[in-house]
């Protein structure tokens, strides 16, 4: 009797845990014939969104479904696989992983390794950084991550043209957001999937960024004259290039402003609170990403921009 009483509160607590469903409700947005986008939350990775912040692409072909990125967790990957099968009536035959970041590649566990592919440099970066990303994702997302293991895309991708089920897909290797950023263009529709090289009305994230390479990549993307651009984060750009130009504008402002802040003697806290121009007022997570970028770039750029001041001790006597 005592034992049963002692157990009762514990038993009552179990359904409370079960009440949180940890189910991703994926809502596809059709943007062209046989092309859908599952929009991510335009916010930082958080319990409230289960880490589902990146946009994911689904392309239907006669052979099977092609995915651009896989989401943040095994649970997401499973939901994505069901959705892609339901939309296209076929199994997933290809999963492109755009770059190393976990909000794009941590859903891979839901798919057979043989269909997963990424640029060779991305595969190297995932092998190098994913254990650390995994710790961070579990810390932030808890049960959303259940069962998620670090998976490396199995097939190194040689950029060029892939024809899958009659659909001509151009794969392009660029860089700048990370060491390797894969872009895919569907030649039939002119839809561009640039991964995280392009953000739209959501401030770009820069943890691995190289400003000059990123700018060159954005110029190359404008040169492709896409009809529709599906940014890595933020709403689909039906003008084709507005999101690319906005990303370029932000990065240019960011690099200039950080250098300017250092040369005016601002510290990191002050630089993180600098005014953000009005033209970026509609950008989600702007202050958050500015402060992250300050963390990524400030010490490095200070070392390049501020002069040496040390002297021999006798010089100060």
């Amino acid at each position: 009797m005592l034992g049963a009483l002692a157990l009762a509160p514990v038993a009552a607590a179990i359904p409370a845990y079960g009440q949180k469903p940890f189910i991703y409700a994926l809502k596809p947005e059709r943007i062209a014939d046989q092309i859908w986008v599952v929009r991510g939350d335009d916010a930082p990775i958080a319990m409230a969104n289960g880490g589902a912040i990146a946009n994911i692409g689904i392309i239907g072909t006669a052979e099977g479904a092609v995915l651009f990125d896989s989401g943040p967790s095994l649970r997401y990957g499973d939901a994505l696989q069901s959705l892609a099968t339901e939309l296209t009536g076929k199994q997933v035959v290809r999963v492109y992983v755009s770059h190393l970041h976990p909000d794009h590649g941590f859903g891979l566990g839901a798919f057979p390794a043989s269909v997963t592919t990424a640029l060779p440099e991305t595969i190297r970066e995932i092998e190098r950084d994913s254990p650390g990303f995994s710790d961070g994702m579990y810390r932030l997302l808890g049960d959303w991550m259940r069962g998620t293991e670090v998976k490396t895309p199995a097939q190194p991708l040689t950029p060029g043209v892939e024809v899958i089920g009659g659909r001509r897909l151009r794969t392009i290797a660029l860089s700048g957001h990370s060491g390797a950023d894969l872009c895919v263009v569907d030649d039939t529709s002119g839809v561009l999937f640039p991964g995280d090289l392009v953000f739209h009305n959501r401030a770009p994230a820069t943890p691995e960024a190289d400003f000059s390479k990123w700018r060159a990549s954005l110029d190359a993307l404008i040169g492709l004259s896409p009809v529709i651009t599906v940014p890595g984060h933020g709403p689909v750009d039906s003008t084709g290039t507005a999101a690319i130009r906005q990303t370029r504008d932000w990065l240019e402002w960011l690099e200039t402003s950080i250098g300017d802040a250092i040369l005016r003697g601002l510290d990191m806290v002050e630089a993180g609170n600098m005014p953000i121009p009005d033209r970026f007022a509609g950008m989600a997570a702007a202050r958050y990403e500015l402060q992250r970028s300050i963390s990524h770039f400030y010490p490095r750029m200070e070392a390049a921009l501020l002069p040496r001041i040390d002297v021999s001790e006798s010089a100060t006597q």
Partner: protein
Amino acid sequence: MRTLSGLALFAASLAGSASARDFPADPLNSPMWDYRATRLFGADPVRFDPRVKIIVPVIAEDQHRFPVAVDARGIEGVRRILIFADLNPIPLAVDYRPVGAQPYIETRIKLDQRTPVRGAVQIASGEWLVSGIWVDAAGGGCSAPPLSRVRGDWADRLGEMRGGAWSIQGKSDAARLRVSFRHPMDTGLVENTASYYIDHLSVRNARGMELATLEMQAAISEDPSITVLPNASAGERLILAGRDTGGRTYAAIVTVESGAIIPPGGGSQ
């Protein structure tokens, strides 16, 4: 919750053994408040005061290097400013005496886990005014090796100092001084590496007058960076003297440039 209250009890018992005094209730409900307060403030009076502004980013992007500013310019007669993190194994980062400077300091600290980060200001009466904020952080800021140790080049550039000084517009006798060092700032919490850090820095003017004195601990990040606001005008020379726990000394001279175009505090003022 069980773990937290257990910690609180543990901390309370430690604090109780050191001192029987009652500190004001902590608005952050830190499990270590009484313990840290006992060690840092001893018998001095203590109260929480929102005029001690602690300014930090919205996210701890890098737990090895988290920028923290304490701005106490709204308070008269500030003698000392402390920056500390309750749940760090080395709680105190810096003990700053702005003897000839405005009461503002910014530096970058290590965070070993989610913790309250606090600023404490001692005024002329001896009373401490305290404020703080919970900061969420990934683990290991104090117990992972510094990057220069991993690369193996920590000794190559040891003692390099960079920085500058800018007069503050609209104030003829106020400047902002920024200085950074190349230094591993070893905590002693990484296996087989003894603690080794810059523990002292002073700033004086060309007339030899002391303007700022800082006692630092290894909770300050690798390659430490400090911003203070010494009373100095454009053209004046500031003389910096530092020392680390290995006895190495550091010296630098900075001339105050005219014309920082924005006041301290960035866009917030």
